[in-house]
């Protein structure tokens, strides 16, 4: 009951003040210390005000910077029981088969507990096949073959899992797909970036 009365009296006060302010604009000396801004909404004094707030409970995040240049993920060093960062490279002419096999490898790693660091595609290389015509010496373009490449990067392959993992991959390798397992080097990472001829030209000029 007291709450209700308080509200009623508050509204009344606000109404009165509003009128007072509008009527006596010329008297700015009137101070209203209790009411800093007359336009305050009434329900902020409700006991349940702010009941749904949750963002103040989250840990403070550092402000997000603008998108950085791609940093290289750390190459994990080799230990006594695990291998270093390995790249499983799947390549072939048929894109659906290559992609499905790389998806299969990724899912297999998830199931076997092998941590996958990264999963990316390398640029497609096109090969033009020129056939010699039967009569005459002119070369005829027969077809364009595109070699697709997908890489699954494994973080630290355990030595005990390794033979099983490799055997499963080999036995499930589809036709027309090449599988290659190599260690990841920085050169591999750098090869993914496009060359910048202007930058290199400027660098050469500076060094001269």
């Amino acid at each position, binding site marked *: 009951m007291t709450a209700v009365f308080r509200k009623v009296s508050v509204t009344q006060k606000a109404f009165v003040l509003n009128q007072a302010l509008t009527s006596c604009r010329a008297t700015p000396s009137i101070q209203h210390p209790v009411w800093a801004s007359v336009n305050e909404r009434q329900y902020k004094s409700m006991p349940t005000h702010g009941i749904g707030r949750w963002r103040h409970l989250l840990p403070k995040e550092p402000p997000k910077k603008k998108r950085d240049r791609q940093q290289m993920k750390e190459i994990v060093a*080799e230990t006594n029981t695990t291998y270093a960062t390995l790249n499983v490279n799947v390549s072939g002419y048929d894109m659906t088969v290559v992609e499905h096999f790389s998806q299969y490898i990724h899912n297999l790693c998830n199931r076997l507990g092998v941590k996958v660091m990264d999963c990316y595609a390398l640029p497609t290389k096109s090969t033009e096949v020129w056939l010699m015509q039967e009569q005459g010496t002119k070369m005829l373009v027969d077809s364009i073959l595109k070699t697709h490449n997908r890489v699954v990067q494994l973080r630290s392959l355990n030595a*005990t899992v390794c033979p099983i993992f490799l055997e499963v991959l*080999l036995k499930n390798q589809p036709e027309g797909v090449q599988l290659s*397992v190599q*260690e990841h080097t920085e050169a591999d990472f750098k090869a993914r970036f496009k060359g910048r001829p202007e930058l290199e030209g400027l660098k050469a000029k500076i060094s001269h």
Partner: protein
Amino acid sequence: MAAPCRRMAGRSLLQFLSSFSRTSVNNSGFRQISSTSVCRRSWQAQHVEESASSPWTLMAAVCLQRLPVISAESSPIEQQFRDMMSQMEQEKSMLSDHELRLLDDADRIRRMQTGEYDSDEEDDRRDQEIVLAQDLEDSWDQKLKNFQPAPRVTAADGDPRSLQRRLADSLLLLVEQPVGGQKVWLLPQTQWQQGETLRETAERALTSLPAAAGFKAMFLGNTPCGVYKYKLPKAARTESSVGTKVFFFKAVLADAGPPAAPDSPLMWVTKSELQHHLKPAYMMKVERFLLGL
């Protein structure tokens, strides 16, 4: 086991590069498997001298497999599904360039035959190509008829010594070795010597086979995939030898070299044929690590 475990932990892992390709089937009928070992880290000969040696003799065996050369046969359901999917995809697909060209050519020929054909009025393809799309298709059909694929089931399927048998399955190498006085069919094994890793022992087991000269195998890892313990019968047991422990290492065949002589004591068998040749207790341990894929 004191000796081998400590050894394995002390030895650093071999860095390896391996590539497997399954495109072309060359004469030997293998996938091209190549592996290069990048700097085998120097083996640290640490506390090799162990005062207390265990009573078990250690041996390492190699589980050498020839991977399937051709695709596995599909079951009836798979075949039906494949046919249905290809039919659906064809019905839903759009016309390709070649088919459009066929239709254009047929259309042009029909118009030419009506008599009111004016070649100047052709919209595109002013320089009409002499070769019609239909002719191209006929020449391709001819080439297809001339192509004879090799048979899936060959005469070598029955010969256990031939590497070309059962192209759709993976084969395991078995050799006949004298064990405890009798000749037994088992995976090639040899005794471990001091100062070498178990994997090196397994590699030696393979290269020391007289019949397996020229076999190039790629080992899949440094860790064994299975173990078989054999206790000698009570009469033969002494203090220093209670029995043998055999550790199996997996390897994949890369190259076979010259074909084996007909009387050589080796055999290539599939998983289903194993039970006819191996002893039951041994077979139980071996089939645990053979993938039935």
